[in-house]
C-alpha cells in the first residue's frame, strides 16, 4: 500500500482523493481497501475536507432510504421450494416428537438423542446428531431453528 501512495504526487493524491469521494462517498470504510491509506494522508487537507463535506451531504440524503427488509413469510416460501430429498417420515411419530420438543427442556432432548431416540436420523443427510434432533423437532419451523442455532450451543445441548 505504501507503494500505491508513492505513485501519486501531491496534486495527483488530491485528484485521486476527490475521485474516490465522488464514487464511493465520504466514508473511507466504503473506499477500495488499497486506497484507504490515501484518506489518512489527505484528511487534514482543507480542499479534501471541503470535497468530503459535499460527499457526506449526499450520503446523508441517500441514507433516508434504508434497505427494505424481507419478511419471514418470504423466507418460509423460499425454503418450501427446497426439494424434499429426505426420507419419508411417519407423520405421527414426528408429530409426537415436535409436541414433545415444545414442552421439554433442551437438556432432556440432548439425553434422548444420546440414546439414539431420533426417528430416522441415520437416513438424513445432516452433519451431526444434534442437527438431526433439530431437523425432526422443527421441520415446520426450520427458519426459527437456523436463526436460533446459537441458542443450542449456549444451552450446552
Amino acid at each position: 500500500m505504501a507503494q500505491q501512495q508513492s505513485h501519486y504526487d501531491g496534486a495527483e493524491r488530491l485528484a485521486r482523493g476527490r475521485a474516490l469521494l465522488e464514487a464511493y462517498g465520504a466514508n473511507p470504510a466504503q473506499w477500495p481497501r488499497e486506497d484507504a491509506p490515501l484518506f489518512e494522508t489527505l484528511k487534514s487537507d482543507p480542499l479534501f475536507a471541503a470535497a468530503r463535506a459535499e460527499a457526506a451531504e449526499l450520503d446523508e440524503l441517500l441514507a433516508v432510504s434504508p434497505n427494505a427488509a424481507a419478511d419471514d413469510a418470504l423466507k418460509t416460501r423460499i425454503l418450501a421450494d427446497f426439494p424434499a430429498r429426505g426420507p419419508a417420515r411417519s407423520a405421527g411419530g414426528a408429530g409426537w416428537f415436535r409436541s414433545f420438543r415444545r414442552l421439554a427442556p433442551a437438556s432432556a432432548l440432548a439425553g434422548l438423542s444420546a440414546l439414539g431416540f431420533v426417528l430416522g436420523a441415520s437416513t438424513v443427510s445432516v452433519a451431526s446428531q444434534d442437527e438431526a434432533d433439530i431437523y425432526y423437532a422443527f421441520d415446520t419451523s426450520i427458519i426459527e431453528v437456523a436463526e436460533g442455532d446459537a441458542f443450542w450451543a449456549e444451552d450446552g445441548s
Partner: protein
Amino acid sequence: MRGSDDTDEALVERAGRGDRLAASKLVVRHTDRVFAASYRMLRDRAAAEDVTQETFLRLWKNAAKWRPQGARIETWLYRVAMNLCLDRLRRTKREAPEEAAPERADPALGADEAMEADERRRAVDAALAELPERQREAITLCHYQELSNIEAAEILGVSVEAIESLLARGRRALRDKLMSRRAELMEGAGNGAATVAL
C-alpha cells in the same frame, strides 16, 4: 467466526445433498440482502419477493453441482438477482413506477413521522429509479449493500474502473436531482437516517 462446516460453500454442498437445515441457514443468512437489493432495483415489494424466491430456487437447482471456482455464494446470488431484476425492468419497460407500493413504516415512528419518512424515502427512491440501470445497480451494490468495488465488478461483469465510473456518474446525477431539496428532505430525518461521521 464461522466454522469450516458453516461457510456458505459448505452449506451449499450440504444443501446439494438434501440437507434442509443447511438450506435454511442459507435462507436466513442471505434473503434479507438479496431482497433489499432487488427492492432497490424494482421498487415493488411483490416483484422483489418474486426475484428473491426465483434466485434461491436457482440455487437449490444448482446446489448439487456447485463447485467453488473462486466465486462466493453471495456474489452468485447477487448476480442472479440483478439479472432477474434487469429482465423484469426491460420486460415491463418501467423505469420509474408512478406510485411505488408504500414500504412498511418503522413501528417506532408516530403516524405523521412515518408519513414524512415515507415521503423522504420515496423522493430518494424516485431519483434512484431515474438513473440508468447500470448506475442504479452500481449504487445499489456498493453504497446500499456495502459490497466492495471488486465484488460489484464481478457481479456486474465489468472492470473495477467501470464500477468506479458508474458510481461517480450515478452519484453526480443523484446530487443534481436531490441537493436542491436537501433541506426539505433532511428536515426531521435526523433520528432515522444514518449519518456519516466526519
